[in-house]
């Protein structure tokens, strides 16, 4: 899958490739090292649409000036870099350069914009911050957003047109037999799953199931006892911790803000920690995305819990992460604030951000997640909610009559399409059937011919809560036996 725009960087040189100055130079975009460039080479980097900062840095800590550029979808932005001439003959000039560079390192590597050209890179525009949909005031946005979900998620890799172009085509998260023990206690054991790029993956389970520990493990905060994982294409290991953390964002259950600092100061701090300089635009965009633009100068101590949660979300948006881990993002929020967070998540998923959502709220998971996983120390199941329902429950019809049926056992046994039945209230019945489309007309005919008033007949829908309770009940039973 192609990216939105391409940065093409050519390195020119005036010295032999064996010279000291022929060492590889690092290329930084928006403060993050994205690759390197050798002498007389041209390299290309995929970039998202929007404003970026480019800098070239030598391995000897010599820098180029920072150049900003606007990447437009489908275009190639060309830059050229070269070492500055350091004539040994004009020693005075060299000395001035040297002394000046101690203060300002802009003099060693020249970096120049060349031109912008079109390229058919077939990418869909994506820029998290610039295009984050603002949290809408109403709830109607959710339905329309959900209907626009890209297809093909269940297989693990998103294929929809709105999907974000991954750095590599593999899954965003690949977890294989991951286990974490704290002494005698097992936090989670033998957990395996994968999450596709652009997928919203729900991670459910009761208290103490190991959800937060899994997030912390994948976020390189704690080391797994055994097993392996790949996060944003990088193998999970202590050595790769910084690189992984550069590509992900984690929002813990408690936002953990510095209460004596303002909202903007909090975000400025974290922008700095992500190595982002000149982050004012990003901060403003992130605040706008969570509808906090007008509270930017407020001290965090003066914000309500819901607003603090939003600041925490804005913080995760700053670094434009490939994967966002949201640990109970709506915990403690009122319904309106929760809805706003839901809408933001929907907006992010439409932009192709991979979201790993830990939640206790099953309605939330059902509404937002492409797939869900149930963890109860071990991974109980993974799948789309519809698939899980089919796996766990037989299909059934719900019948509601005007008055109770005289002898329901005798009545339903006579209908061939009905395999089993059970009452669900005074005049409501749940019928187990193999094919509701065949059984429903047959049941309706039988009820009408028996002169029973029918208020409702339709396929019974099992909620995610039913699935959850069924799995947890299985676990409880297994422990008892």
């Amino acid at each position: 899958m192609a990216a939105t725009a391409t940065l093409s960087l050519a390195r020119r040189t005036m010295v032999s490739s064996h010279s000291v100055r022929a060492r590889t130079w690092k290329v930084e975009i928006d403060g993050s090292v994205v690759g390197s460039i050798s002498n007389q080479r041209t390299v290309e980097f995929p970039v998202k649409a929007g404003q970026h900062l480019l800098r070239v840095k030598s391995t000897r800590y010599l820098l180029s000036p920072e150049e900003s550029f606007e990447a437009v979808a489908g275009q190639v932005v060309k830059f050229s870099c070269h070492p500055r001439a350091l004539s040994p003959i004009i020693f005075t000039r060299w000395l001035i350069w040297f002394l000046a560079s101690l203060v300002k390192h802009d003099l060693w590597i020249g970096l120049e914009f060349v031109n912008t050209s079109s390229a058919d890179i077939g990418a869909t525009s994506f820029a998290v911050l610039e295009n984050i949909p603002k949290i809408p005031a109403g709830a109607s946005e959710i339905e329309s957003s959900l209907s626009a979900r890209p297809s093909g998620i269940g297989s693990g890799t998103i294929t929809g047109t709105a999907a974000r172009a991954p750095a590599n085509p593999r899954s965003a998260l690949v977890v294989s037999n991951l286990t974490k023990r704290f002494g005698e206690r097992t936090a989670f054991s033998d957990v395996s799953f994968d999450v596709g790029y652009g997928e919203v993956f729900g991670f459910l389970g009761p208290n103490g199931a190991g959800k937060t520990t899994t997030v912390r493990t994948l976020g390189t905060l704690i080391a797994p006892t055994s097993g392996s994982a790949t996060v944003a294409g990088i193998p999970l290991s202590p050595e790769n911790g910084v690189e992984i953390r550069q590509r992900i964002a984690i929002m813990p259950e408690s936002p953990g803000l510095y209460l004596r600092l303002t909202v903007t100061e909090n975000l400025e701090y974290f922008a700095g920690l992500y190595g982002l300089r000149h982050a004012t635009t990003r901060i403003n965009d992130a605040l706008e995305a969570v509808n906090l633009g007008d509270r930017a100068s407020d001290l965090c101590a003066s914000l309500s819990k819901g607003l603090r949660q939003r600041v925490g979300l804005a913080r995760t948006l700053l670094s434009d992460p490939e994967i966002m881990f949201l640990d109970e993002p709506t915990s403690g929020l009122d319904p309106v604030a929760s809805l706003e967070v839901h809408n933001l998540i929907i907006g992010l998923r439409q932009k192709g951000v991979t979201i790993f959502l830990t939640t206790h709220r099953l309605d939330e998971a059902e509404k937002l997640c492409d797939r869900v996983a149930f963890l109860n120390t071990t991974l109980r199941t993974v799948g789309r909610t519809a698939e899980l329902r089919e796996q766990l429950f037989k299909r059934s019809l719900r019948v509601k009559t005007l008055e109770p049926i005289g002898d329901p056992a005798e009545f339903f046994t006579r209908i061939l399409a009905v395999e089993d039945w059970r009452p669900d209230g005074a005049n409501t019945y749940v019928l187990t059937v193999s094919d509701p489309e065949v059984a429903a007309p047959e049941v309706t005919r039988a009820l009408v011919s028996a002169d029973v008033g029918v208020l409702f007949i339709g396929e019974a829908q099992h909620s995610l809560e039913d699935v959850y309770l069924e799995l947890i009940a299985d676990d409880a039973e297994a422990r008892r036996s």
Partner: protein
Amino acid sequence: MMSLDATRLRAVVHKELLDYRRKRAIVVSMVLLPILFLVEPVVSIFVAAPSESSSALDSFVILPLLYMLLIAVVMPSTLAAFTVVGEREQGTLEPLLTTPLREQEFIIGKGAAVMIPSVALSYLVYGLFLLAVELFAHPAVATAVFHNGPILLALFLFAPLVAGWSVVVGMAVSVRASEVRVAQQLGMLASLPITGVVLLLAIGVIHPTFPVAIAFAAGLLVIDLITLRIVSRMFDRERLVIGTKATRS
């Protein structure tokens, strides 16, 4: 060779200094503590009998001078003790550890933010003291102070070094402590042994000369660097996140 990112370091230092400025208790202690440590030396100098011999005066002024060095010991130890356990108590440590910030950047950034105001205030107090001596002290006493070259050199060289010691020791305690108050008390205690050098100079066990001052400064620098390395190794993300007991999700 560890690689440090200047942007991240700058972010840590800037945020810490901003946070100090907003915390009333820190601002008040930063104002009161130097005044407290300035009073005793100033009074001592002004009550000194100028009729005494110059050698007696020379010895007499050593203690008031070195007394001011305690600013660089006491102030950083309380601030440094807060650095890690304080973040954990206010719930900001975990979000911080989820960023690309390296352990060394965290320690050096936090340490620098503690050292900058502490050393700056120490130097400000030294300056004020010397100015007061120059302007108001008896000429014989002033001469004794300004002719104590090795002690003055030690005062200026030792301030950042003893502050550095207090910072790294305070952070070491903070990494392992479970409460801010415990960390501050232990940090203060742990930072005191370094004042032994001061004591040895003050009571005349070590005769203050320029080479001795420089040698002690070099020794303190080595101790600081070794301790810094030890603290870096003590910094364990997992332990900091989950504490001594494993948390449940």
